[in-house]
């Protein structure tokens, strides 16, 4: 069954299994490998994308559920004004270590700041708790979110 959705501002029609998770459609069929596979179970956040502006776990989103929706992935997040600030802060503070979690972190941070432009420490914890960083870049993640919010720490 063909499924139509918008990915990074481009309309796409995909012929695939309805239960295939968005994560694997992005990685295997749309050559968008920036969205990462970490746990496949909604536990690590590595696969976070924006679906109609909300942060969702692409590994837990069957492609059929994304039909008619607009997806933003790490490859195009900087086209959003908030995403651009987040990416700039991440670069300026050199947040990544191995970098594997960082696409998911940036997507979650973008969703957080879109909802809550001036987040408190608790807002940051709540907004980012679903994203694991095995390298433990958490201190720079906190700083970068404050910097992107214009609340330089």
């Amino acid at each position, binding site marked *: 069954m063909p499924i139509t959705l918008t990915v990074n501002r481009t309309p796409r029609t995909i012929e695939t299994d309805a239960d295939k998770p968005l994560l694997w459609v992005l990685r295997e069929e749309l050559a968008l490998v920036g969205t990462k596979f970490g746990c496949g179970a909604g536990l690590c956040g590595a696969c976070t994308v924006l679906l109609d502006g909300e942060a969702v776990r692409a590994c837990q989103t069957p492609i059929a559920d994304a039909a008619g929706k607009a997806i933003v992935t790490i490859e195009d997040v900087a086209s959003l004004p908030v995403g651009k600030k987040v990416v700039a802060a991440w670069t300026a503070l050199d947040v990544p270590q191995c*970098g594997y979690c*960082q696409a998911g972190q940036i997507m979650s941070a973008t969703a957080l700041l879109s909802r809550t432009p001036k987040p408190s420490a608790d807002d940051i914890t709540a907004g980012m708790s679903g994203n*694991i960083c*095995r390298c433990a870049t*958490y201190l*720079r993640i*906190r700083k970068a979110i404050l910097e992107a919010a214009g609340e330089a720490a």
Partner: protein
Amino acid sequence: MSTVSLNRRSFIAATIAGGAALTFEARLTLARAAAGTGEPALLGAFIHIAPDNTFIIEAKNPEIGQGIKTMLPMLIAEELDVSWSQIRIRQADTNEKLYGMQIAGGSWATPFNWMPARQAGAGARQMLVLAAEKLWGVPAASLTTEAGEVIHKASGRRATYASLAPEAVKIAAPDLEKVPLKSPETFRIIGKSQPGVDTPAIVRGAPLFGIDTRLPGMVYAAMVKCPVQGGTIRQFSDALVRQQRGISAVVPVNSGEVPAGKHDAVLIVADSWWRANKVREKLTVEWDSAAQAGFSTAGYAKQAAALLGSAPQSSLFKAGNADAALARAAKTITADYAYPILSHATLEPQNCTALMHADGKLEIWAPSQWPAEGIKDVARVMSIAPEAITVHLTRIGGGFGRRLMNDYMVMVAQAAKAMPGRPVQLIFDRTDDMRNDYYRPGGWHRLIAGIDASGAMIALKDHFITFGAGGKPIRAAEMNAHEFPGPVIADVDYGMSFIATNLATGWLRAPTSNAMAFVFQGFLAEVAAAAGLDLPELMRRTLGGPKMLPRAEEGEPEFSTARARGVIDAVCKFASWTGKPSTVKGKGRGFGFYFSHRGYFAEVVDVTVADGAVKVDKVWVAGDIGAQVINPLNAEHQMQGAAIDGIAQALVWQPIVQEAGAVAQENFLDFPMMRIEMAPEDVAITWVKTDNPPTGLGEPALPPVIPAIANAIHDATGKRLRTLPLQMS
């Protein structure tokens, strides 16, 4: 890590071979340049000079997030005397003959490359200067360099390296041992913070990681592995699998961990990994794992308890007569410590891509921390020549020691062989990854110390129960015979007893040290309390005056008591340590020291204990890694990462549980990870600079934080926790 020690020596030889390659490569490039191909001029294996006077520097080591892809080129660029903006860094393929040892392990890259990498840059610079001398007829001594140019101040003449390269490659490569190096005051790159070279690509989601490898016609493999490590396939049926759409092959493989001729996994290859993974349930396999089914967590604990009460099976270190000294001690302190089996849980699951070419050459794209070892493993298991194997290094989504092992490479290579001409990418799912690790071995210790009337330690015994085979510890399950404070106590007895396991074990960031620091610094805090001292003071007294204690193993440096004292004093000052017990209920402060991986680290933590939950509020770190911190921005990253990783080991990670031979853990629910809410407010760092060559930072800051937390919990609550993870109830 004795196999690694051997390699460490061969690294020196390989480095010299790398030096020889400088001449060879230079000549080779001359021919190209003469033919006017516009190819960049090569000065040695590491440096390519492009016609526009930009420079490609090869980054030879695997990048796992430790920052090596940025740091090693910094050393070369500094001595080559180019500016950082003029260079582009390229990940080198695996070629130890050309580049020297290529490993992300042991925090070795800094100590082993500090001189050779600088010498490579300085040697190339010298060739360029000699080229200018020849062309301009002025003495080399009158020439200086800066930002990729040779300058003759007296005449105002300057020439770019690119313009000199055709002449420079004709000059014989200098003896790298004799090439003059910059003096540290003139460093322009070393010691200045450089952001990660891949950061801009990471934040735009560029394909960098092993799992991002995409090749024309590539197919994907999912794995059905024996749930019990060491078990093999008796028989399997893939009839139902082959009926599914998109399946291109079903290949039984040997992970390299079971005897030749046997298989312990089946790879299902399909046009989509998601599909291959989904149809795994259609495969029926009968496993042969009876020999392994008896191993379990409960069984290990029972054996350990029994062994602790008996005499050690073998002696590790003995001096004087510990029993006699304990008999005359004013006080004795006895305690049992234990730590569990752990998984590495790198965020990028194990994966690897391979392509068997028609001519029998095997090409591999691997997120491996030790690719040359992978080549050996593949060659052994598949009976092919190592020379037929090429390994391209990808960026790696976390290593922590897991990827020093190359099982994924061995398995995917066999699938590639079954379908020549087709690239195959194997990806472990999270459960595969957790159940097929090379686990950090658990261990148990019974410690007995004696102090005299003055509070001085006079005797120490440790009975270490560890995983072993044939009367020896297995990989990563060993203990340093000279574990501090053994060498400074007159009467010491360290003994070991062994428990068998079917689990494959391996190195986890700061291997053995991550466990021993907890055991020994936790226990020494108990001894200090019995002596009426705080731990820093007991450490000062036990370390005594400046001297060198025996090295942990061949090839490692000795333990300097002066450097240990340096960081202990520094952290006490930095954190305003008073040694006074906490006066606020639920708030506590603890100290830990450890020397490992050539680095001296003392750390203080503040914790809050409320409703049975422990939170680390802040960590203070004092570190001595020699005279030079090469990349301060990344050093901060490694300190934060190591300290928070230590907090995870102390408080968050749960033991790997084994039942009937099989690991029970499935995913991050039953192997929980450190999350942002558990990260401390700050990890504050102070460096103690000493006149020693710089050493690595990936590991040595991790171990001390674990006992520091245990000691802080004791300060906050009066409760002494002796088992990891630290749990209040």
